[in-house]
């Protein structure tokens, strides 16, 4: 009886036309639901990938600020910190970094990453052979993502991945170079050329231990970071062709109070100045020009430093090749590190070009305009400046004509003086966008996300 009833119902279901639309709509709704689930999954996977990408970028950028450094532990610790601060569970963090000696190893380090794994690779890609410092951080994230359609289809789990690499290294280009320094080593007339080192600052490089075969790392253009670099060139000064380490460049101006720092004649001015460019340097004959002095006064005032609180007590000594006894051993020795760490004094850090005559065999400062080869970049801290007498009516900073300007311990009128800073961040007003392979420790350090 029951079988007969069931058969009758089945026959009715097969041959009755009623309900066919409802049945087909049911199938279509199921299809629509599957499509909706797939679109939802796609959106969630993309969203999860976006989140993972943000975590990887934050970790790489936070870590690379610790570089260049030969010890990768600081960079690794920062990567873990910022991964956690961006939502990664502590249990998912890697136990240690993967260290890589070259770019190929870094690239391959994430190829076999597991389905639920985070890797932090710290590598050395800049600086070439002999450079012991790590400069690159790569963060790889791979994890299982939320799935809806896969639950229905039985596909299994879906994995999302994100990779971000950041590099920190010496700048090889800049948009502004207000001044330039001449390497004391007169043979340093080509990029990367080894320099003689005047270790004790006595003006010659022939003392015991001062060889001409030092590496570039030990001899960054022959300039000493503890040595005062006065910016002056021209006639009637105590900076002779043999000992003067720097030249001064008049700041460009378009009006009585509108100044900008400039070097003219760059071959590729669109992208700023790069190591290897030739530039035309317009030097100020004799003393620094009024434009330079007024530019610095305006710069100080604009940064709330009209009282010169960012000055570094220093005593120039032209006879000792710029060696500054105050900073090295004297009462003003603490001023430079204190002021360089004060954000209010950041405006004193300017990018400086290391230049040589392109066509000459000897690197002699020009007396007037000339074409120079940029062989490197450095960060320079402006310790102070003295305007020529009566310039701009600023008698407070004018020189006393009664002082013997050529005597050791005294500055000439119209001189800007300061120090080279090692491994310094670029000053904010300079748009540094290039990382080079130069291990020059004086070059500004720049950080960039490269992947």
């Amino acid at each position, binding site marked *: 009886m029951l079988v007969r009833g069931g058969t009758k119902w089945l026959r009715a279901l097969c041959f009755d036309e009623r309900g066919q639309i*409802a049945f087909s*709509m049911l199938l279509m709704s199921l299809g629509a639901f599957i499509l*909706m689930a797939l*679109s939802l999954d796609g959106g969630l996977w993309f969203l999860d990938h976006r989140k993972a990408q*943000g975590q990887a970028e934050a970790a790489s950028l936070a870590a690379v600020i610790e570089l260049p450094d030969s010890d990768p532990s600081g960079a690794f610790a*920062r990567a873990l910190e910022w991964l956690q601060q*961006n939502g990664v569970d502590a249990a998912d963090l890697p136990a240690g970094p993967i260290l890589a000696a070259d770019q190929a190893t870094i690239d391959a380090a994430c190829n076999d990453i597991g389905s639920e794994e985070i890797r932090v690779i710290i590598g050395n890609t800049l600086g070439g052979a002999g450079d012991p410092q790590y400069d690159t951080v790569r963060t790889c994230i791979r994890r299982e993502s939320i799935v809806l359609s896969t639950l229905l289809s039985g596909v299994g789990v879906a994995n999302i991945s994100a990779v971000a690499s950041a590099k920190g290294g010496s700048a090889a280009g800049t948009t502004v170079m207000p001044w330039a320094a001449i390497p004391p080593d007169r043979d340093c007339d080509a990029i990367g050329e080894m320099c003689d080192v005047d270790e004790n600052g006595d003006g010659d490089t022939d003392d015991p231990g001062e060889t001409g075969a030092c590496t570039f790392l030990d001899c960054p253009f022959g300039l000493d970071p503890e040595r005062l670099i006065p910016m002056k060139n021209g006639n009637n000064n105590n900076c002779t062709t043999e000992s003067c380490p720097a030249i001064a460049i008049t700041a460009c101006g378009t009006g009585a109070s509108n100044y900008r720092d400039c070097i003219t004649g760059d071959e590729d001015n669109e992208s700023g100045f790069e190591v290897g460019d030739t530039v035309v340097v317009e030097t100020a004959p004799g003393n620094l020009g009024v434009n330079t002095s007024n530019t610095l006064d305006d710069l100080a005032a604009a940064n709330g430093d009209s009282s010169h609180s960012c000055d570094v007590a220093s005593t120039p000594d032209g006879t000792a090749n710029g060696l500054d006894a105050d900073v090295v051993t004297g009462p003003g020795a603490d001023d430079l590190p204190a002021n360089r760490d004060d954000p209010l004094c950041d405006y004193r850090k300017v990018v400086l070009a290391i230049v040589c005559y392109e066509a000459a065999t000897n690197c002699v400062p020009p007396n007037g305009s000339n074409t120079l080869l940029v062989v490197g970049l450095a960060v320079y801290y402006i310790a102070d400046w003295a305007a020529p007498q009566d310039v701009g009516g600023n008698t407070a900073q004018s020189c006393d004509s009664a002082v013997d300007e050529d005597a050791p311990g005294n500055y000439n009128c119209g001189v800007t003086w300061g120090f080279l800073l090692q491994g310094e961040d670029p000053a*904010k007003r300079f748009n540094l966008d290039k990382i080079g392979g130069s291990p020059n420790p004086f070059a500004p350090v720049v*950080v960039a996300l490269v992947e």
Partner: protein
Amino acid sequence: METLKKIVESIYAALKEDEGQAGIELMLTIPFFLGFVLLAVDVSVLTYQAVAANNAVREGARFGAVNCQGVPCARDLVCDRTVERSSGTISDGDPDDVVTVGWVDRTGNGQTYNKGDSVTVDVSHRYQFLFFPFIEIDVLAGADMRLEQTDDTTTLTGPAPCW
């Protein structure tokens, strides 16, 4: 009475007939089908806005991490950058969109503007479904970036809403 009887008989006759049954079935089932389609549209817009919000907080935090590209950094600048990079998802001043920007002392020196400290950007955006307006979901996104340089502005404070 007679008229009412005729009406009832005609309805009964209509129900017994097969004519128009497909139309009735279509009418009954199409709301479900349309519901799925419209839900799919809403979910797609929701995920798009979630991705846009995540991208916006990342852009805002990065902007703060590089000292607002050299100008004296301020909360308003980071807020504006976050709104600008949200592809229209976050509206400036909308009470349903909460953007929180702050600087956090990570170096332990009591200052929030030094190299190594954090700038954080968080967004809470309320998405009201287009076709099911009784459904509202809060889209949450956050980013924490490390300051690459000490900021010129020494008055950057902890997390606070933009408006």
